[in-house]
Every structure is written in structure tokens, then in C-alpha cells.
């Protein structure tokens, strides 16, 4: 039998997780996608629905600091874990260095890919505070920019990577 449960009682589950540092609890169906959970339930519109097949990167969010495509991840899978969206990146009203760098380098055109680009880059810099240009390109391969503004995006990420502006890593850069 491979039919779903249409017509029968739909299973519900309770999840608790942290989204941008805040505890969240909800009762959901296991089939609810993380992207719908964030956008429709929590009103966090930074993650975009675009290809819906995890090839474009516009819906990228960080799940325990790793980039995932929220369009193909179940919200249930985020239970007990930490989700970071673009809305949670600025702290105390101050933009994250990557956000600031994207502005300074005009790395935003239409803006649709930007949330995903910045979050993916944030994950990279957490891993490799000083990536080479090649490593940045490799890490961002899953994020498409259809304005083709890659050059400025690359420069923005590089400017943070080399500058010691990463939050919490300034001490490590003091050589």
C-alpha cells in the first residue's frame, strides 16, 4: 500500500526548536516543509521559494550552522535543533559583517538570492575563517544569482574573510 492518509486522520506532531535564538513550539503535520513553517507560520520571509527542487539555494537556511535547502527539508527534522534565517543574523540592530559587506560591494541586485548567499557564506566562514577564492566559489556553487552578480558577491565575501570582521573571530585574526 503506497497511498497516503487522505480521508483518514492526519498525524500531528509537536515540535520545539530554536529559530534565530528564540524558542518556538508548534503542532504540525510531519509533511510540513521547513520553508513553509518559516514563511507561513513564523512570517520569516527571508528564505525564498524559487526552484523548489534544492538546486538554486534561494531557500537556504542554517540548521545547526549547516546550510540546507528549506524547500526540501521537513520542519519536523528541525525539532530540538537551531535554525538560523537571514532575519536572525543582525544583532542588537547591527548588521552582520557579511550583510554590511554585501551593501558596500553592491552585491545585491534584485535581492532574491541574497539571503541564501549570505547564510551559505556565513557557514563557510565559520568553518574556514580564511577561505581562498576557490574555496568561496566552491562553497557557494549551490546558490544561483540570476542577475549574474557573482563578481561582487565574491568580493563581498572575500572582504569579510580576510578582514577579521567576522563576529566572534576578531581575536583569532590578530596576527
Amino acid at each position, binding site marked *: *500500500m*503506497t*497511498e*497516503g*492518509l*487522505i480521508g483518514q486522520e*492526519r*498525524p500531528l*506532531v509537536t515540535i520545539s526548536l530554536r529559530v534565530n535564538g528564540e524558542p518556538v513550539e508548534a503542532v504540525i*503535520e*510531519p*509533511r510540513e*516543509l521547513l520553508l513553509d513553517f518559516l514563511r507561513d507560520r513564523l512570517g520569516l520571509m527571508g528564505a525564498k521559494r524559487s526552484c*523548489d*527542487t*534544492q*538546486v538554486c*539555494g534561494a531557500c*537556504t537556511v542554517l*540548521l545547526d550552522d*549547516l*546550510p*540546507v*535547502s528549506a524547500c*526540501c*527539508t*521537513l520542519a*519536523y*527534522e528541525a525539532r530540538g535543533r537551531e535554525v538560523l534565517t537571514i532575519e536572525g543574523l543582525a544583532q542588537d540592530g547591527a548588521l552582520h559583517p557579511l550583510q554590511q559587506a554585501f551593501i558596500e560591494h553592491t552585491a545585491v541586485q534584485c535581492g532574491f538570492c541574497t539571503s541564501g548567499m549570505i547564510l*551559505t557564506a556565513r*557557514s*563557510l566562514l565559520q568553518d574556514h575563517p580564511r577561505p581562498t577564492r576557490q574555496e568561496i566559489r*566552491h*562553497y557557494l*556553487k*549551490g*546558490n544561483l544569482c540570476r542577475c549574474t552578480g557573482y563578481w561582487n558577491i565574491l568580493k563581498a565575501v572575500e572582504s569579510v574573510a580576510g578582514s577579521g570582521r567576522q563576529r566572534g573571530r576578531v581575536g583569532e585574526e590578530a596576527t
Partner: protein
Amino acid sequence: MQPFEYHSPRSLPEALRLLQELGDGARLIAGGTDLLLRMKQGQLAPRALIDLRRAAELHGISFSPEEGLRIGAAVTLRELQRSPLVRDHCPCLCETASWMASEQVRSLATVGGNLCNASPAADLAPPLMVLDAQAVLVGPQGERRLPVEAFFLGPGQTALDRGELLKEVLVPPTPGNALYLKHAPRAFMDIAVVGVAVHLRMERGLARAVRIALGAVGPTPLRAGPSEALLEGSAPTASLLEEAADLAARACSPIDDLRGSAWYRRRMVRVLTRRALDRLCAASLVGEGT
């Protein structure tokens, strides 16, 4: 997506019990990067999902000099790519993982998922085959081992019996070198048009343990037996390598599809096989100190 129940067993025995109880209406999920996509697109509508990620037995990468590498089925491609153990003992697998999909997919997708989907183009299949890897299957009757190449029966079909799941992959230690070359129009986020893996080691100028596997050019990933036989124990000359590459192109049975024609795929098998052999013979000769 149709509604489904979700089960998260905490151990392998619990997962096997659920698989038994829930039967054919249930699907196993690990990273979910393929499964959820197919469910979203309406190709699959399982009644229940059994999530294998919380079963500790399916995680972890370890090495022993006797058995080699043990890679749990729920190890993610990201973990595989970054594992120091894998880098030391099978750098080819790190390299292969780094060229699969994107960071977003590699954060979730698993080694077991790549194999159990049994795509003829599964990128991990050819390198694991030439590394002589074994798949460890576990079911109600216990464990059994199969060479990875015997694990694939057809597109989407594996040797897993009802109630069985893939527990881990064992890669024996090898003094040889392996290489996987993937040909796809887009360097990332694309399915291989052709994938070729080669393993060999040079001993006193002779090629030994020659193994060649081809992906995306048949109903399953396959070994190029005639090429291997030609090269085994030979002193690889340019004309011999060319002949081996030719035999590989004849050993496969590609189809025409949107990614490439059968004719093109066959040509690319020849090109990539030759290229991989050239690189490995050169690398191995350097390693031998000649």
C-alpha cells in the same frame, strides 16, 4: 505532499522492527534529499517514513588496518568529504563527495542514500566499486555482505530484501590509487552524463589490481572487465591504454536521454577512461620512485 506518519527509531533493532511492522507502505529516509523531492512531485506517497538518522549504529567513520574503512550508511556527504580518515585512506572518496550536488545537499544527503537510490549515475558507486568495497546489509536474519557492484540490480533496484536496510560500507585497505572522473555539463548540481572510476597500483613497472567502473552508461554502474583483464600485469604503454579505453567504451550499454546520446556517452567513456588511466599510471610511477 500526501500525509504520512513519521518514525524516528533510536537504534538499529528498533528501525528493523518498524520496517517489519510497517511493511511496504513505509519508506526509509536518511537525508531525504531525493526522497522528499519525489514525494513533493507526487511520484511517491508512502504511508510512513522511518528516519534512520537517530540510529547511532548507522553513523561514524572508522579505520582498522585489517578491515579498512567502515563508513556508516547515515554518514552525510559533507562528513565523508571532510573526514580525515577518509582523506588519509581513500582520498578519492573525499574528492568524489566534494563534486556531488551542493553544500546544501551535502549537509543532509547520505552515503547510504546515494547507494540505495540505485541511480545508474550514483557518483559514489564507481569509486566504491573500484575500491573493492562491500555493502553490509542487515535484516531480521542478521547481517550479510555483498560487493558494492552486486548491490545494484537495475535502475532504482537494489539487492536489499524486504525488511533489510544498508548498514554500512567497508572499504578494504589498498596500496593502490583510485580516481573518479565525472563528466556533466554543469560542474556542480548536475547528474553525471558519464562517470569513470579507475583503481590500480604499479609494481616494478607493471599495472596490478586494475579495476575500472563506469557510471551512467547502463542500467547499473558496471565494471569494465575486458579492459581490466587487458591491463592486469601489463606494462602500460600508450597504445595499450588506448585499447583498454576502447574496450571500456564497448563494455557499456548507454541510452539516449536528455543528458546525452548513447553515441556521445560511449565516446566519453573512452576519453575519461584513457584520461583516468594516464593520470593514475603517472601518479603511481612517481609514487614508485621511478
